[in-house]
Every structure is written in structure tokens, then in C-alpha cells.
């Protein structure tokens, strides 16, 4: 289990993350959403170990993150960045192979092959990374990051992603998220920051709503997706529409304000 307890982080006396506690279990996808400035990125960096916070603890499988050496941490969690700029003409395969530095695999060739298959990037292996499309680059990066945690281990591993779909088109977005779903069965827990409520609703098992450094609500998707809560968090009227045909609930921004919300305007 990835456990964050009472995380508090200030920049110049101003709390960016005020008090956040959450848990991520292997085999589940937890989506973290919230408006800009909610503290999502900072919290993410604290979880991944990039930033250390004075108050609160982060624990991976029962070990405090501060007690783990960088190699031990790399064995238990992988991080996919939002953007990655590669300034040298590495091929896609070379980029994926970079992930090998974090593991001691007995069969690296098989490992590379498996992750590239899982991310549908095998056909790109010889091409120069910088010349790939945005979606292809994301999947290659995902493959690289998966190398770290792919192989079965006696302990659960975790994958943290920071807005992995922000610059992708619809088809690419769903492709990446579908791959993430397949990881659940490999004893991997996934936490991702998303902006798109509908993607979160479709693919996540749990959702955490972050606002002003505090978790407004965390829980299963059905429990969290409530119009009132969403409106509070995002400061915007929200309407939930159930698609009768597919049974899927869509979240959209409403144009009317609800009477329950105090407003100085009259409809």
C-alpha cells in the first residue's frame, strides 16, 4: 500500500498542501483531480519523493520513503512525467532501454519486448524518438517507465502519472488509459493526476478531489461524483447526465446555476 499521512507542505508560510492523507492499494486506479492551484503537482512530487515535506509521512509498503535509498525507491515506484524533452537522437527502443538502469532483470530482452508489446510500441523501435507523434512519445515513455515495475515481485509496485493524457487526442487518451487498466492485474497500484472528469469517471476505481491543499472528498467513483461536491471543488456549475443507452454517467459543465448555491445573480 502507498500511504500518505497528514502531508503538510508550505512555501514561504503559505500552505500548498494543507493536510492530505490518502491510500493507494495495488490493483486499483486512483485519480486525483482538482482545480489549478489546488496543490496536485506539489502533492504528486511529495508522493514520488522529489520533494521532501517536514510534516506528514509517505510510506511505500510500510517503509517510510525517507528510509528508502533511491534504488530501493525506484524498485517500488515508477513516475511518468507530463512532458519529456529528449535532446539527443535516441531511438524509441533506446529510450525504453534506459529504464533498465533501475532494475536488475535476469532477462532484459524479454522485459523490453513485453513492455513494448503492452504499450503497442514495438513497431516504433528503430525510429528516432524525437520524430514520433505526441501519442507515440507518451506510449514509449510509458514503456520506459513500466520497465521499472513490470516484473513480478513479492511486493506491490506503484505507478504515478502526472497528467498523462493532457496533450493527446481522444484515441490516444483512451489507448493510454486502457494500458493502465491492464496493469492492475500485475499487483501494481496506479495514481494519476487528471483534468478530465469524464476520463476519471470511466477508468478510475477511486477519485480524490483536491482543493486548496485539502482533500474535499475521496472514495469510490460513484460516491465522489456528486453535483454539489463537484461544484464546490471546481467553483462551476456541474451537471451529471446519465446516458440511458450505455449506462455511463457524463459530467458536464452546466450553464444554469442551482438554487442551492448562493449567488448574487438571479436566473
Amino acid at each position, binding site marked *: 500500500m502507498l500511504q500518505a499521512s497528514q502531508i503538510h507542505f508550505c512555501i514561504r508560510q503559505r500552505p500548498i498542501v494543507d493536510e492530505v492523507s490518502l491510500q493507494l492499494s495495488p490493483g486499483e486506479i486512483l485519480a486525483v483531480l482538482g482545480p489549478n492551484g489546488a496543490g496536485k503537482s506539489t502533492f504528486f512530487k511529495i508522493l514520488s519523493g*522529489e520533494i521532501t515535506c517536514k510534516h506528514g509521512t509517505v510510506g511505500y509498503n510500510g517503509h517510510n520513503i525517507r528510509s528508502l535509498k*533511491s534504488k530501493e525507491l525506484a524498485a517500488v515506484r515508477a513516475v511518468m512525467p507530463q512532458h519529456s524533452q529528449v535532446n539527443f537522437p535516441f531511438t524509441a527502443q533506446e529510450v525504453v532501454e534506459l529504464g533498465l538502469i533501475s532494475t536488475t532483470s535476469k532477462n532484459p*530482452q524479454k522485459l523490453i519486448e513485453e513492455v513494448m508489446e503492452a504499450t503497442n510500441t514495438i513497431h516504433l523501435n528503430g525510429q528516432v524518438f524525437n520524430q514520433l507523434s505526441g501519442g507515440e512519445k507518451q506510449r514509449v515513455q510509458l514503456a520506459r517507465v513500466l520497465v*521499472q515495475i513490470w516484473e513480478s515481485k513479492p511486493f506491490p509496485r506503484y505507478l504515478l502519472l502526472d497528467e498523462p493524457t493532457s496533450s493527446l487526442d481522444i484515441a490516444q487518451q483512451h489507448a493510454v488509459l486502457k494500458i493502465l487498466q491492464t496493469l492492475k492485474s500485475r499487483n501494481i497500484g496506479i495514481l494519476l493526476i487528471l483534468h478530465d472528469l469524464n476520463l476519471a469517471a470511466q477508468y478510475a476505481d477511486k477519485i480524490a478531489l483536491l482543493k486548496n491543499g485539502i482533500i474535499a472528498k475521496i472514495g469510490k467513483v460513484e460516491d465522489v461524483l456528486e453535483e454539489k461536491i463537484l461544484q464546490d471543488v471546481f467553483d462551476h456549475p456541474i451537471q451529471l447526465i446519465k446516458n440511458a443507452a450505455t449506462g455511463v454517467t457524463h459530467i458536464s459543465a452546466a450553464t444554469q446555476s442551482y438554487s442551492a448555491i448562493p449567488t448574487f445573480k438571479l436566473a
Partner: protein
Amino acid sequence: MIPTLTHTKIQRQNMTLMSFGFVLGLVVLTSLSFGAFSIPFPQTLAILFDQMGLSFGSYELQQSNVLLQIRLPRVLMAIVVGGGLGISGAALQGMFRNPLVEPGLIGVSSGSALFAVLFMVLIPTATATFSWVKLLGLPFFAFVGGLTCVTAVYQLSKSQGKIDAATLILAGVAINALAGSLIGLVLFFADDSALRSFTFWSLGDLGGATWAKIPLTFLLIVIPSILLLFNARQLNTLALGEQEAFHMGVNVQQVKIRLLISCALIVGVGVSMVGMIGFVGLVVPHLIRILFGADHRLVLPGSFLLGAILLNFADLVARLIVIPAEMPIGVITALIGAPFFIWLIFNLNKSRN
């Protein structure tokens, strides 16, 4: 089955490196055979074979003196300094994640030269030329100078954990300007001719290579170069970014310190011996990447070998072009390197659009 770092790929890399080594051998032989003093080729071979204990023919004592006492140390100096410039250029490019970086551009060379000049002013040059204080102190001071300047440039160009390319170049320009003017200032006030001229420092000169300088130079350049080779995989990951490397379990801080110290030592020692020679550290890693890809496990050793080849070739031209005088070697490397640099920038812009 996709080809990964299998036995065959390693084999191919080794073949490439061996062929570079072979070319280096040819270039070395050519460098030894030509110069202001004319030695016919059979005599050159005879002298060399004789050193290995084989008899090949006869030669005159003066020919062997020129070949073994003047040309051979010079060629060895070109190999080790050229190789050092190549490999440190490649490592700095990897570390700064910018293929346009080279020791001269980011202030390592001029910082080394400044501190070397300061050392020569502080230590009375009336002492014997090879007292161990002077022999060790000069490259050490140069190393400190190079390290100080490259650290300053690095700190100036970092913002939010990323290296801003534009600030990097500006910081390098600033440090170069400062160091260059301080060198001029020191040389102006100190009138000891043993300080060497401004053109020695700014354009380089391999003519002062003597056997006494070779062992220390070799040691202080080859050892950090080997350290760089051992960090090739880490350099590969750094190419993605420092955060990404950290996430993959690389101790980024430690790797950066190792890289900076090694490069500063290599360049500092080189500059203290032969002055500042530009463009080798820029051109060589690029050629290697164009030919063989960006994997540092090949780029680093390949850059060492190609740097050695290039500097020997440039020195040969410098020695032959205006006999019996010599062209400063920095002029030759600039004539080769600057057009290449312009072509690089042109291509960079093209690939952006």
C-alpha cells in the same frame, strides 16, 4: 524478436571502436613522419622498430633525436589532450542536455587558463622548470579554475531544476569574458616571459611538449576519462532530465559531481599544458552521434578516439603549413570547427521548423 543490447550489438560497437583505434594509429604514424625536419619514411620506421627491439634499417642519430625527443612527446600530447577534449565535450553535452555545449563555450577552458596564469604569477618562475611543486601545482590550479567556472555557469543556468539553454550560453559568454579579461590583466602586469604569451593561452600550442610532462598529463586525463566511461549509462538517463533520472533510481547529485569534476580535471590539465584549443569538444561528439547514435556507451569512447585523431591531424597541418614557422593550432581547429558549428545551428533551426 527485437534486437536489444545483445552480444551482436556489443560486438558491433567494439568493431567500430577498434577501427577508430586503427585510424588513430595511421594518423599517429603520419604525424611522426612529417615536420620541419625531414626524415625519410624508411628511417622513421627504422627508428620506431628499433625502439621495439626489432632491427629494420639504419638511421642517423639526429633523426632519431628529432623523432623520439621532439615529435613523439608532441604526438602523445595531442592524443591525450585531443581525446580528453572529445570525451569531456561529450560528457558535458550529456550533462547539460544540450548538443551545442563544449568546454570552451561554457567557461571551463578559460577558467582553467586563468587559474593556470595566476599560479605562474604566484610561484616564482626562477625555480627549476620541473620542480614537483610546479609540475603538480599548475594542472591542479587549472583544475580548480575550470571546476569553479563550470559550477558557476551551471548554477547560473539552472531554474526550477531545469537547465535553460539560452541562460547557459549567456552564462558561458559572461564567464568567458570575465576570465579572458582577467588573463589579459594578469599577463599585462607580470612581465615574466615564462608566463607565455596571450596567444599561447587563447590559441593553444603543442610545441612545448616534453617527455617530462607526459606521464602526469596522461594520468590526470586518462583516469577521469575512464571514470566518465563508467558513468555512460547514467549519462544516458540524464539525457531525459534530472527528475526522470532520479525517478529511475539514479543518484543524480552524485553523478553530476562526478561528471563536473572529471571534465574539469581533464580540461584543466589539458589547458595548463597546451593552452585553450576550441571546437574539438563540440565537433567530435556530434560526428560520433551522427554516425553511431546517441548511446553514451559508444559516444564517450568514440569521442575520445576521434578527438585524438582530430587534434593530431590539426597539429600536423599547423606544423606543415608555414614551415619553418608554425600556425597556432587553435586557428586550425577553429577553421574546421566554426563552419561545422554554423551548420549545426542551421540544422537545429531547420528541425525545429
